[in-house]
Protein backbone atom coordinates (compact mmCIF):
# COMPACT_ATOMS: atom_id res chain seq x y z
CA UNK A 1 0.00 0.00 0.00
CA UNK A 2 1.39 3.36 -0.97
CA UNK A 3 -0.84 5.43 1.32
CA UNK A 4 0.21 6.96 4.59
CA UNK A 5 -1.77 5.92 7.63
CA UNK A 6 -2.88 8.66 9.97
CA UNK A 7 -3.83 7.65 13.51
CA UNK A 8 -4.04 9.03 17.01
CA UNK A 9 -0.75 7.91 18.47
CA UNK A 10 -0.65 5.11 20.97
CA UNK A 11 2.15 2.69 21.52
CA UNK A 12 -0.20 -0.29 21.30
CA UNK A 13 -1.64 0.77 17.96
CA UNK A 14 1.80 1.57 16.60
CA UNK A 15 2.89 -1.98 17.38
CA UNK A 16 -0.07 -3.33 15.39
CA UNK A 17 0.82 -1.21 12.35
CA UNK A 18 4.13 -2.77 11.55
CA UNK A 19 5.41 -2.17 8.02
CA UNK A 20 3.31 0.83 7.07
CA UNK A 21 4.18 4.44 6.43
CA UNK A 22 2.72 6.29 9.40
CA UNK A 23 1.62 9.75 10.41
CA UNK A 24 0.95 9.70 14.15
CA UNK A 25 -1.28 12.48 15.49
CA UNK A 26 -0.45 13.89 18.89
CA UNK A 27 -1.73 16.82 20.87
CA UNK A 28 1.44 18.29 22.26
CA UNK A 29 5.12 18.60 21.39
CA UNK A 30 6.41 16.78 24.44
CA UNK A 31 7.48 13.15 24.03
CA UNK A 32 7.83 13.56 20.27
CA UNK A 33 11.36 12.18 20.33
CA UNK A 34 10.17 9.02 22.09
CA UNK A 35 7.33 8.67 19.60
CA UNK A 36 9.74 8.98 16.69
CA UNK A 37 11.93 6.24 18.14
CA UNK A 38 8.94 4.01 18.78
CA UNK A 39 7.39 4.43 15.33
CA UNK A 40 10.64 4.00 13.47
CA UNK A 41 11.28 0.61 15.07
CA UNK A 42 9.07 -1.16 12.54
CA UNK A 43 7.65 1.55 10.30
CA UNK A 44 8.47 4.36 8.03
CA UNK A 45 7.61 7.66 9.72
CA UNK A 46 6.32 10.12 7.12
CA UNK A 47 5.82 13.00 9.55
CA UNK A 48 4.24 13.82 12.87
CA UNK A 49 1.01 15.78 12.99
CA UNK A 50 0.82 17.82 16.15
CA UNK A 51 -2.70 19.11 16.61
CA UNK A 52 -2.65 21.98 19.09
CA UNK A 53 -5.58 23.72 17.41
CA UNK A 54 -6.70 25.30 20.65
CA UNK A 55 -3.28 26.57 21.69
CA UNK A 56 -1.17 29.58 20.83
CA UNK A 57 2.33 29.22 19.42
CA UNK A 58 3.68 31.33 22.26
CA UNK A 59 2.45 28.75 24.78
CA UNK A 60 4.08 25.77 23.09
CA UNK A 61 7.33 24.29 24.33
CA UNK A 62 9.67 23.79 21.37
CA UNK A 63 12.69 23.11 23.54
CA UNK A 64 11.59 19.55 24.23
CA UNK A 65 11.81 18.67 20.51
CA UNK A 66 15.11 17.35 19.20
CA UNK A 67 14.10 15.23 16.21
CA UNK A 68 14.66 16.16 12.56
CA UNK A 69 11.48 14.31 11.55
CA UNK A 70 9.06 16.63 9.73
CA UNK A 71 6.49 18.07 12.10
CA UNK A 72 3.19 19.54 10.96
CA UNK A 73 1.84 21.69 13.74
CA UNK A 74 -1.70 23.06 13.88
CA UNK A 75 -2.03 25.98 16.27
CA UNK A 76 -4.81 28.44 16.99
CA UNK A 77 -2.82 31.64 16.71
CA UNK A 78 0.55 33.25 17.34
CA UNK A 79 -0.42 34.27 20.89
CA UNK A 80 1.92 36.69 22.61
CA UNK A 81 3.97 37.95 19.67
CA UNK A 82 6.96 38.89 21.78
CA UNK A 83 7.13 35.44 23.38
CA UNK A 84 6.83 33.81 19.97
CA UNK A 85 9.54 36.01 18.48
CA UNK A 86 11.81 34.90 21.33
CA UNK A 87 11.26 31.30 20.18
CA UNK A 88 11.90 31.94 16.51
CA UNK A 89 15.50 30.70 16.50
CA UNK A 90 14.44 27.51 18.24
CA UNK A 91 11.55 26.85 15.84
CA UNK A 92 13.70 27.57 12.80
CA UNK A 93 16.08 24.84 13.88
CA UNK A 94 13.32 22.23 13.58
CA UNK A 95 11.88 20.65 10.45
CA UNK A 96 8.50 22.13 11.20
CA UNK A 97 5.60 23.74 9.40
CA UNK A 98 2.99 25.62 11.40
CA UNK A 99 -0.58 25.98 10.21
CA UNK A 100 -2.84 28.65 11.68
CA UNK A 101 -6.58 28.86 11.47
CA UNK A 102 -8.14 31.19 8.90
CA UNK A 103 -10.78 32.05 11.49
CA UNK A 104 -8.94 35.14 12.62
CA UNK A 105 -7.79 38.07 10.51
CA UNK A 106 -4.69 38.43 12.71
CA UNK A 107 -3.54 34.95 11.72
CA UNK A 108 -2.96 36.11 8.15
CA UNK A 109 -0.55 38.73 9.45
CA UNK A 110 1.02 36.23 11.85
CA UNK A 111 1.69 33.83 9.00
CA UNK A 112 3.51 36.61 7.18
CA UNK A 113 5.51 37.59 10.24
CA UNK A 114 6.75 34.08 10.93
CA UNK A 115 7.32 33.26 7.28
CA UNK A 116 9.43 36.39 6.90
CA UNK A 117 11.51 35.11 9.81
CA UNK A 118 12.18 31.81 8.06
CA UNK A 119 9.51 29.53 9.52
CA UNK A 120 7.52 27.44 7.04
CA UNK A 121 3.88 28.30 7.53
CA UNK A 122 0.40 27.53 6.28
CA UNK A 123 -3.10 28.88 6.59
CA UNK A 124 -5.88 26.38 7.12
CA UNK A 125 -9.02 26.68 5.02
CA UNK A 126 -11.07 25.88 8.09
CA UNK A 127 -13.22 28.96 8.24
CA UNK A 128 -16.74 29.11 6.79
CA UNK A 129 -15.89 32.45 5.24
CA UNK A 130 -12.47 33.80 4.35
CA UNK A 131 -11.92 37.41 3.36
CA UNK A 132 -10.92 37.46 -0.32
CA UNK A 133 -8.49 40.35 0.05
CA UNK A 134 -6.73 38.89 3.07
CA UNK A 135 -6.27 35.58 1.32
CA UNK A 136 -5.02 37.18 -1.89
CA UNK A 137 -2.69 39.47 -0.02
CA UNK A 138 -1.15 36.45 1.67
CA UNK A 139 -0.96 34.64 -1.67
CA UNK A 140 0.79 37.61 -3.22
CA UNK A 141 3.30 37.67 -0.37
CA UNK A 142 3.78 33.90 -0.52
CA UNK A 143 4.32 33.69 -4.26
CA UNK A 144 5.63 37.06 -5.35
CA UNK A 145 7.37 38.42 -2.24
CA UNK A 146 10.44 40.40 -3.20
CA UNK A 147 12.62 38.96 -0.45
CA UNK A 148 13.19 35.24 0.10
CA UNK A 149 11.08 33.98 2.97
CA UNK A 150 9.88 30.60 4.17
CA UNK A 151 7.10 28.92 2.23
CA UNK A 152 3.40 29.38 2.94
CA UNK A 153 0.84 26.67 2.24
CA UNK A 154 -1.40 26.11 0.35
CA UNK A 155 0.20 28.60 -2.05
CA UNK A 156 3.50 26.80 -2.15
CA UNK A 157 1.76 23.56 -3.14
CA UNK A 158 -0.14 25.39 -5.88
CA UNK A 159 2.91 26.87 -7.58
CA UNK A 160 4.90 23.68 -7.25
CA UNK A 161 2.18 21.80 -9.10
CA UNK A 162 0.64 24.41 -11.35
CA UNK A 163 2.46 23.26 -14.46
CA UNK A 164 1.19 19.69 -14.14
CA UNK A 165 -1.54 18.61 -16.49
CA UNK A 166 -3.99 17.32 -13.92
CA UNK A 167 -6.15 19.34 -11.56
CA UNK A 168 -4.63 20.18 -8.22
CA UNK A 169 -5.95 18.84 -4.96
CA UNK A 170 -5.02 21.40 -2.35
CA UNK A 171 -6.65 19.25 0.31
CA UNK A 172 -3.52 17.12 0.07
CA UNK A 173 -1.84 19.81 2.14
CA UNK A 174 -4.41 19.29 4.84
CA UNK A 175 -4.08 15.47 4.90
CA UNK A 176 -7.35 15.14 3.05
CA UNK A 177 -6.63 13.10 -0.06
CA UNK A 178 -7.63 9.43 -0.23
CA UNK A 179 -4.99 8.79 -2.82
CA UNK A 180 -2.33 9.64 -0.24
CA UNK A 181 -3.80 9.32 3.22
CA UNK A 182 -6.18 7.10 5.12
CA UNK A 183 -7.32 7.49 8.72
CA UNK A 184 -7.65 4.59 11.09
CA UNK A 185 -9.09 4.11 14.55
CA UNK A 186 -8.05 1.74 17.32
CA UNK A 187 -10.01 -1.09 15.68
CA UNK A 188 -8.05 -0.54 12.44
CA UNK A 189 -11.21 0.60 10.64
CA UNK A 190 -10.23 3.18 8.09
CA UNK A 191 -11.80 6.26 6.51
CA UNK A 192 -10.75 8.56 3.71
CA UNK A 193 -10.92 11.72 5.81
CA UNK A 194 -10.76 12.83 9.41
CA UNK A 195 -14.33 14.01 9.11
CA UNK A 196 -15.46 10.54 8.05
CA UNK A 197 -13.46 8.95 10.82
CA UNK A 198 -15.05 11.21 13.41
CA UNK A 199 -18.48 10.27 12.04
CA UNK A 200 -17.50 6.61 12.14
CA UNK A 201 -18.02 6.49 8.40
CA UNK A 202 -15.58 3.74 7.48
CA UNK A 203 -14.49 2.46 4.10
CA UNK A 204 -13.33 -0.85 5.49
CA UNK A 205 -10.80 -2.47 7.78
CA UNK A 206 -7.08 -2.21 7.38
CA UNK A 207 -6.78 -5.99 7.35
CA UNK A 208 -8.72 -6.01 4.07
CA UNK A 209 -7.29 -2.88 2.57
CA UNK A 210 -5.59 -4.72 -0.23
CA UNK A 211 -9.02 -5.82 -1.43
CA UNK A 212 -10.56 -2.35 -1.38
CA UNK A 213 -11.28 -0.84 -4.76
CA UNK A 214 -9.94 2.67 -4.46
CA UNK A 215 -11.01 3.32 -8.01
CA UNK A 216 -14.54 3.83 -6.70
CA UNK A 217 -13.30 6.89 -4.90
CA UNK A 218 -11.54 8.10 -8.01
CA UNK A 219 -14.66 7.45 -10.03
CA UNK A 220 -16.74 9.47 -7.63
CA UNK A 221 -14.31 12.31 -7.99
CA UNK A 222 -14.48 12.14 -11.74
CA UNK A 223 -18.27 12.10 -11.66
CA UNK A 224 -18.23 15.11 -9.41
CA UNK A 225 -15.87 16.79 -11.84
CA UNK A 226 -17.93 16.12 -14.93
CA UNK A 227 -21.19 16.99 -13.22
CA UNK A 228 -20.21 20.67 -13.32
CA UNK A 229 -20.06 20.56 -17.07
CA UNK A 230 -23.41 18.83 -17.35
CA UNK A 231 -25.00 21.26 -14.92
CA UNK A 232 -23.24 24.20 -16.51
CA UNK A 233 -22.77 25.73 -13.10
CA UNK A 234 -20.28 28.53 -12.56
CA UNK A 235 -17.45 26.07 -11.89
CA UNK A 236 -17.81 24.69 -15.41
CA UNK A 237 -16.53 27.92 -16.88
CA UNK A 238 -14.13 28.88 -14.12
CA UNK A 239 -10.59 29.37 -15.41
CA UNK A 240 -9.25 28.45 -11.99
CA UNK A 241 -11.06 25.15 -11.64
CA UNK A 242 -7.72 23.44 -11.95
CA UNK A 243 -6.62 25.01 -8.68
CA UNK A 244 -9.83 25.11 -6.69
CA UNK A 245 -11.52 21.89 -7.88
CA UNK A 246 -14.77 23.27 -6.41
CA UNK A 247 -13.44 22.92 -2.89
CA UNK A 248 -13.70 26.57 -1.86
CA UNK A 249 -16.83 27.62 -3.68
CA UNK A 250 -18.66 28.78 -0.57
CA UNK A 251 -15.66 30.10 1.33
CA UNK A 252 -14.94 33.25 -0.66
CA UNK A 253 -17.17 36.04 -1.92
CA UNK A 254 -15.70 35.66 -5.38
CA UNK A 255 -13.92 32.33 -5.49
CA UNK A 256 -13.31 32.60 -9.23
CA UNK A 257 -11.40 35.83 -8.90
CA UNK A 258 -9.50 34.59 -5.85
CA UNK A 259 -8.31 31.39 -7.49
CA UNK A 260 -7.75 32.93 -10.90
CA UNK A 261 -5.46 35.49 -9.30
CA UNK A 262 -3.60 32.82 -7.36
CA UNK A 263 -3.32 30.80 -10.56
CA UNK A 264 -1.72 33.81 -12.21
CA UNK A 265 0.64 34.40 -9.28
CA UNK A 266 1.63 30.73 -9.35
CA UNK A 267 2.41 30.85 -13.05
CA UNK A 268 4.51 33.97 -12.61
CA UNK A 269 6.36 32.36 -9.75
CA UNK A 270 6.80 29.17 -11.70
CA UNK A 271 8.20 31.06 -14.68
CA UNK A 272 10.53 33.01 -12.41
CA UNK A 273 11.80 29.83 -10.82
CA UNK A 274 12.37 28.21 -14.18
CA UNK A 275 14.61 31.11 -15.08
CA UNK A 276 17.14 29.84 -12.57
CA UNK A 277 16.06 31.90 -9.62
CA UNK A 278 17.33 30.49 -6.38
CA UNK A 279 15.02 28.09 -4.60
CA UNK A 280 15.07 26.85 -1.08
CA UNK A 281 14.55 23.17 -0.37
CA UNK A 282 11.84 22.61 2.18
CA UNK A 283 9.98 20.07 4.20
CA UNK A 284 7.00 19.32 1.97
CA UNK A 285 4.02 17.07 2.26
Amino acid sequence: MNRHIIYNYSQALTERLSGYSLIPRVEDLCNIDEIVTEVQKNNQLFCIWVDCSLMSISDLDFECVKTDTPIILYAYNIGDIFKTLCKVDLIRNHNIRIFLSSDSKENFHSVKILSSLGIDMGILLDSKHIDDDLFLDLASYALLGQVPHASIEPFDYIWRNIMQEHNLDIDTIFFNNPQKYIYINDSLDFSFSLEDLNKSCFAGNLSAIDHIDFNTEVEQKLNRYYSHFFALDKCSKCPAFKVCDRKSIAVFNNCQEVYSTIYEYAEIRSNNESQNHNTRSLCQL
Partner: protein
Amino acid sequence: MANVLLTETCVRSCPYCFAKQYMSDSDVNDSLTWDNLIYIADFLQSSGINHISLLGGEPLIHPNIAEFILYLNKRGFFITIFTSGIMPDSKFEEFCNKITGIPNLNLSFVCNVNEPRLSPKSELAKVERFFSIFGSRCSLSFNIYRLDFDMNFTIEYIVKFGLNRHVRLGLAHPIPGQKNKYIAPESFSAVRDTLMSTFEVFSEHNIDPGFDCGFPLCMFNDNDLGKLYKYTGGRISFQCGPAIDIGTDLSVWSCFPLSDFNKKSLYDFTSFEELVNFYESKMEEVRRKISGIYTKCDVCEIRRKNLCSGGCLAHVLNYMIQEGGFRNE
Protein backbone atom coordinates in the same frame (compact mmCIF):
# COMPACT_ATOMS: atom_id res chain seq x y z
CA MET B 1 19.43 54.37 5.72
CA ALA B 2 15.65 54.89 5.80
CA ASN B 3 13.66 56.60 8.50
CA VAL B 4 10.46 54.76 9.28
CA LEU B 5 7.66 56.45 11.19
CA LEU B 6 6.02 54.21 13.75
CA THR B 7 3.55 56.75 15.05
CA GLU B 8 2.28 60.11 14.01
CA THR B 9 1.75 61.49 17.48
CA CYS B 10 4.33 62.93 19.84
CA VAL B 11 4.49 63.38 23.58
CA ARG B 12 6.19 66.78 23.23
CA SER B 13 5.39 70.03 21.45
CA CYS B 14 8.77 71.41 20.47
CA PRO B 15 8.36 74.88 18.91
CA TYR B 16 10.78 74.07 16.09
CA CYS B 17 9.24 70.70 15.23
CA PHE B 18 9.71 70.12 11.52
CA ALA B 19 7.29 67.18 11.64
CA LYS B 20 4.52 69.36 13.04
CA GLN B 21 2.80 69.98 9.73
CA TYR B 22 2.93 66.34 8.72
CA MET B 23 1.60 65.23 12.11
CA SER B 24 -1.25 67.69 12.19
CA ASP B 25 -2.42 66.44 8.80
CA SER B 26 -2.46 62.81 9.86
CA ASP B 27 -4.88 60.80 11.93
CA VAL B 28 -4.03 60.55 15.60
CA ASN B 29 -4.62 56.79 15.45
CA ASP B 30 -2.22 56.24 12.57
CA SER B 31 0.54 53.91 13.53
CA LEU B 32 2.61 51.46 11.55
CA THR B 33 0.98 48.06 11.07
CA TRP B 34 2.72 44.69 10.98
CA ASP B 35 1.90 44.34 7.30
CA ASN B 36 3.53 47.64 6.43
CA LEU B 37 6.52 46.91 8.63
CA ILE B 38 7.08 43.62 6.81
CA TYR B 39 6.74 45.38 3.46
CA ILE B 40 9.29 48.02 4.48
CA ALA B 41 11.70 45.42 5.84
CA ASP B 42 11.39 43.43 2.60
CA PHE B 43 11.86 46.55 0.51
CA LEU B 44 14.99 47.60 2.37
CA GLN B 45 16.45 44.11 2.51
CA SER B 46 15.93 43.58 -1.20
CA SER B 47 17.77 46.88 -1.71
CA GLY B 48 20.72 45.68 0.35
CA ILE B 49 19.96 47.99 3.27
CA ASN B 50 20.46 46.55 6.75
CA HIS B 51 20.18 49.66 8.89
CA ILE B 52 16.81 51.12 9.78
CA SER B 53 15.88 54.18 11.79
CA LEU B 54 12.61 54.26 13.68
CA LEU B 55 11.03 57.55 14.49
CA GLY B 56 7.71 59.27 14.92
CA GLY B 57 6.04 61.19 16.43
CA GLU B 58 7.35 59.33 19.41
CA PRO B 59 8.21 55.77 18.33
CA LEU B 60 8.35 54.43 21.88
CA ILE B 61 4.61 54.92 22.34
CA HIS B 62 3.80 52.51 19.53
CA PRO B 63 1.88 49.60 21.10
CA ASN B 64 4.16 47.03 19.44
CA ILE B 65 7.47 48.84 19.80
CA ALA B 66 9.30 46.01 21.62
CA GLU B 67 7.93 43.44 19.18
CA PHE B 68 8.95 45.53 16.18
CA ILE B 69 12.46 45.93 17.54
CA LEU B 70 12.82 42.22 18.20
CA TYR B 71 11.36 41.38 14.78
CA LEU B 72 13.73 43.70 12.93
CA ASN B 73 16.63 42.42 14.99
CA LYS B 74 15.73 38.83 14.07
CA ARG B 75 15.74 39.91 10.43
CA GLY B 76 19.28 41.17 10.82
CA PHE B 77 18.67 44.91 10.87
CA PHE B 78 20.73 47.35 12.89
CA ILE B 79 18.19 49.63 14.51
CA THR B 80 18.47 53.24 15.55
CA ILE B 81 15.54 54.80 17.36
CA PHE B 82 15.08 58.54 17.35
CA THR B 83 13.23 59.30 20.56
CA SER B 84 12.59 61.85 23.26
CA GLY B 85 13.12 59.08 25.81
CA ILE B 86 9.73 59.91 27.26
CA MET B 87 7.56 56.84 27.82
CA PRO B 88 4.46 56.28 29.91
CA ASP B 89 5.38 54.79 33.30
CA SER B 90 3.13 51.82 32.68
CA LYS B 91 5.07 50.78 29.57
CA PHE B 92 8.60 51.67 30.59
CA GLU B 93 9.44 48.72 32.82
CA GLU B 94 7.96 46.22 30.40
CA PHE B 95 9.90 47.80 27.54
CA CYS B 96 13.15 47.64 29.52
CA ASN B 97 12.66 43.96 30.27
CA LYS B 98 11.84 43.08 26.70
CA ILE B 99 14.81 44.64 24.96
CA THR B 100 17.59 43.88 27.42
CA GLY B 101 18.71 40.86 25.40
CA ILE B 102 19.41 42.82 22.22
CA PRO B 103 23.08 43.76 21.86
CA ASN B 104 23.96 47.48 22.04
CA LEU B 105 25.51 47.23 18.60
CA ASN B 106 22.18 46.18 17.09
CA LEU B 107 19.99 48.70 18.87
CA SER B 108 20.82 52.27 19.71
CA PHE B 109 18.90 55.39 20.61
CA VAL B 110 19.40 58.93 19.43
CA CYS B 111 17.70 61.01 22.08
CA ASN B 112 16.53 64.40 21.06
CA VAL B 113 16.89 66.69 24.07
CA ASN B 114 15.84 70.24 24.72
CA GLU B 115 17.48 72.56 27.18
CA PRO B 116 16.38 71.63 30.72
CA ARG B 117 15.70 75.28 31.55
CA LEU B 118 13.05 75.28 28.82
CA SER B 119 11.57 71.84 29.56
CA PRO B 120 8.86 70.77 32.01
CA LYS B 121 10.23 68.98 35.09
CA SER B 122 8.03 65.95 34.54
CA GLU B 123 9.62 65.45 31.11
CA LEU B 124 13.11 65.79 32.48
CA ALA B 125 12.49 63.11 35.08
CA LYS B 126 11.35 60.69 32.39
CA VAL B 127 14.30 61.52 30.14
CA GLU B 128 16.76 60.96 32.98
CA ARG B 129 15.07 57.68 33.86
CA PHE B 130 15.54 56.60 30.25
CA PHE B 131 19.21 57.54 30.31
CA SER B 132 19.77 55.76 33.62
CA ILE B 133 18.65 52.49 32.01
CA PHE B 134 19.75 52.86 28.40
CA GLY B 135 22.69 55.25 28.78
CA SER B 136 25.20 53.05 27.00
CA ARG B 137 22.88 52.77 23.98
CA CYS B 138 22.16 56.49 23.80
CA SER B 139 23.67 59.43 22.03
CA LEU B 140 22.22 62.91 22.14
CA SER B 141 20.67 65.06 19.50
CA PHE B 142 20.07 68.76 19.86
CA ASN B 143 18.17 71.07 17.54
CA ILE B 144 19.15 74.70 17.45
CA TYR B 145 16.11 76.93 17.08
CA ARG B 146 16.96 80.01 19.12
CA LEU B 147 20.06 82.17 19.22
CA ASP B 148 20.58 82.07 22.99
CA PHE B 149 21.00 78.29 23.04
CA ASP B 150 23.27 76.63 25.57
CA MET B 151 24.42 73.04 25.11
CA ASN B 152 26.48 72.61 28.25
CA PHE B 153 23.73 70.48 29.77
CA THR B 154 24.54 67.80 27.19
CA ILE B 155 27.97 67.38 28.76
CA GLU B 156 26.38 66.88 32.16
CA TYR B 157 24.04 64.24 30.74
CA ILE B 158 26.86 62.41 28.97
CA VAL B 159 29.07 62.33 32.04
CA LYS B 160 26.31 61.54 34.54
CA PHE B 161 24.65 58.74 32.56
CA GLY B 162 27.58 57.38 30.56
CA LEU B 163 26.04 58.26 27.22
CA ASN B 164 27.94 57.87 23.97
CA ARG B 165 30.31 60.78 23.49
CA HIS B 166 28.69 62.12 20.39
CA VAL B 167 26.15 64.89 19.98
CA ARG B 168 24.20 65.26 16.77
CA LEU B 169 23.41 68.87 15.98
CA GLY B 170 20.58 70.00 13.82
CA LEU B 171 19.60 73.44 12.66
CA ALA B 172 15.86 73.95 12.90
CA HIS B 173 14.64 74.50 9.37
CA PRO B 174 11.44 76.05 8.15
CA ILE B 175 8.51 73.99 6.94
CA PRO B 176 7.89 75.63 3.58
CA GLY B 177 4.73 77.71 3.71
CA GLN B 178 4.12 76.94 7.41
CA LYS B 179 5.04 78.49 10.73
CA ASN B 180 7.57 76.89 13.03
CA LYS B 181 10.54 78.30 14.86
CA TYR B 182 13.82 78.12 13.00
CA ILE B 183 17.08 79.93 12.56
CA ALA B 184 17.02 82.26 9.62
CA PRO B 185 20.13 82.15 7.42
CA GLU B 186 21.11 85.70 8.31
CA SER B 187 21.54 84.55 11.92
CA PHE B 188 23.80 81.59 11.16
CA SER B 189 26.91 83.55 12.09
CA ALA B 190 25.56 84.03 15.62
CA VAL B 191 24.96 80.28 15.83
CA ARG B 192 28.51 79.71 14.64
CA ASP B 193 29.95 81.72 17.56
CA THR B 194 28.12 79.64 20.18
CA LEU B 195 28.90 76.39 18.40
CA MET B 196 32.63 76.98 18.18
CA SER B 197 32.91 77.94 21.84
CA THR B 198 30.81 74.92 22.85
CA PHE B 199 32.96 72.61 20.75
CA GLU B 200 36.02 73.77 22.66
CA VAL B 201 34.36 72.53 25.85
CA PHE B 202 33.16 69.36 24.12
CA SER B 203 36.73 68.70 23.09
CA GLU B 204 37.90 68.86 26.70
CA HIS B 205 35.40 66.09 27.49
CA ASN B 206 36.21 64.00 24.41
CA ILE B 207 32.77 64.63 22.97
CA ASP B 208 32.42 64.66 19.18
CA PRO B 209 29.91 66.93 17.53
CA GLY B 210 28.16 65.74 14.39
CA PHE B 211 26.29 67.91 11.93
CA ASP B 212 22.92 66.98 10.56
CA CYS B 213 22.15 68.21 7.06
CA GLY B 214 21.66 71.82 6.08
CA PHE B 215 24.65 73.60 7.63
CA PRO B 216 26.24 75.79 4.93
CA LEU B 217 30.00 75.56 4.88
CA CYS B 218 30.42 79.33 4.65
CA MET B 219 28.99 79.90 8.11
CA PHE B 220 32.43 78.82 9.31
CA ASN B 221 35.78 80.40 8.49
CA ASP B 222 38.87 78.45 7.50
CA ASN B 223 40.14 78.44 11.05
CA ASP B 224 36.82 76.98 12.23
CA LEU B 225 36.89 74.35 9.52
CA GLY B 226 40.29 73.20 10.64
CA LYS B 227 39.06 72.84 14.18
CA LEU B 228 35.86 71.14 13.07
CA TYR B 229 37.91 68.62 11.13
CA LYS B 230 39.73 67.83 14.33
CA TYR B 231 36.64 67.83 16.58
CA THR B 232 34.63 65.57 14.29
CA GLY B 233 37.45 63.27 13.33
CA GLY B 234 37.03 64.44 9.75
CA ARG B 235 33.43 63.26 9.63
CA ILE B 236 31.89 66.56 8.68
CA SER B 237 29.58 67.29 5.83
CA PHE B 238 27.74 70.34 4.54
CA GLN B 239 25.35 68.49 2.32
CA CYS B 240 21.59 68.56 2.07
CA GLY B 241 20.24 65.43 0.47
CA PRO B 242 17.24 63.16 0.76
CA ALA B 243 17.01 61.49 4.16
CA ILE B 244 14.05 59.35 3.01
CA ASP B 245 11.23 59.18 5.48
CA ILE B 246 8.58 56.47 5.22
CA GLY B 247 5.19 57.19 6.76
CA THR B 248 2.89 54.79 8.54
CA ASP B 249 0.79 54.52 5.37
CA LEU B 250 3.93 53.85 3.27
CA SER B 251 3.97 57.34 1.83
CA VAL B 252 7.53 58.54 1.27
CA TRP B 253 9.17 61.93 1.15
CA SER B 254 12.63 63.37 1.11
CA CYS B 255 12.82 64.62 4.70
CA PHE B 256 10.41 66.15 7.21
CA PRO B 257 10.82 69.81 6.25
CA LEU B 258 10.04 68.70 2.71
CA SER B 259 7.22 66.32 3.59
CA ASP B 260 4.87 68.06 1.14
CA PHE B 261 7.48 68.17 -1.62
CA ASN B 262 6.81 65.44 -4.18
CA LYS B 263 5.33 63.02 -1.69
CA LYS B 264 5.06 59.53 -3.20
CA SER B 265 4.25 56.00 -2.12
CA LEU B 266 6.78 53.31 -1.40
CA TYR B 267 4.84 51.18 -3.89
CA ASP B 268 6.00 53.55 -6.64
CA PHE B 269 9.58 52.32 -6.31
CA THR B 270 11.27 49.00 -6.77
CA SER B 271 14.39 49.72 -4.75
CA PHE B 272 15.77 52.13 -2.21
CA GLU B 273 18.34 53.30 -4.70
CA GLU B 274 15.59 54.25 -7.15
CA LEU B 275 13.82 56.14 -4.36
CA VAL B 276 16.93 58.09 -3.39
CA ASN B 277 17.70 58.87 -7.03
CA PHE B 278 14.19 60.20 -7.53
CA TYR B 279 14.45 62.67 -4.66
CA GLU B 280 18.00 63.64 -5.51
CA SER B 281 16.86 64.55 -9.01
CA LYS B 282 13.86 66.50 -7.67
CA MET B 283 16.11 68.42 -5.27
CA GLU B 284 18.56 69.06 -8.06
CA GLU B 285 15.75 70.55 -10.17
CA VAL B 286 15.07 73.10 -7.44
CA ARG B 287 18.74 73.84 -6.95
CA ARG B 288 19.12 74.54 -10.65
CA LYS B 289 16.66 77.39 -10.18
CA ILE B 290 18.00 78.61 -6.85
CA SER B 291 21.35 77.16 -5.97
CA GLY B 292 21.36 77.92 -2.27
CA ILE B 293 20.13 79.99 0.61
CA TYR B 294 22.44 82.91 -0.22
CA THR B 295 22.74 84.83 -3.50
CA LYS B 296 26.45 84.15 -3.41
CA CYS B 297 25.70 80.43 -3.66
CA ASP B 298 25.12 81.01 -7.41
CA VAL B 299 28.79 81.70 -8.00
CA CYS B 300 30.28 79.79 -5.09
CA GLU B 301 33.23 77.57 -6.01
CA ILE B 302 32.71 75.40 -2.95
CA ARG B 303 29.10 74.90 -4.01
CA ARG B 304 30.20 74.12 -7.55
CA LYS B 305 32.61 71.49 -6.25
CA ASN B 306 29.70 70.04 -4.28
CA LEU B 307 31.49 70.41 -0.96
CA CYS B 308 28.42 72.28 0.23
CA SER B 309 24.78 72.04 -0.85
CA GLY B 310 24.07 75.69 -0.17
CA GLY B 311 22.06 75.07 2.99
CA CYS B 312 18.76 73.35 3.55
CA LEU B 313 16.44 73.06 0.59
CA ALA B 314 13.52 73.92 2.87
CA HIS B 315 14.82 77.50 3.05
CA VAL B 316 14.99 77.60 -0.72
CA LEU B 317 11.45 76.30 -1.12
CA ASN B 318 10.29 78.71 1.55
CA TYR B 319 11.67 81.61 -0.46
CA MET B 320 9.91 80.31 -3.53
CA ILE B 321 6.61 80.04 -1.67
CA GLN B 322 7.02 83.51 -0.17
CA GLU B 323 7.54 84.97 -3.63
CA GLY B 324 11.30 84.46 -3.68
CA GLY B 325 13.84 86.86 -4.95
CA PHE B 326 14.62 87.84 -1.38
CA ARG B 327 17.62 85.77 -0.67
CA ASN B 328 20.04 86.68 2.01
CA GLU B 329 23.10 88.59 1.01
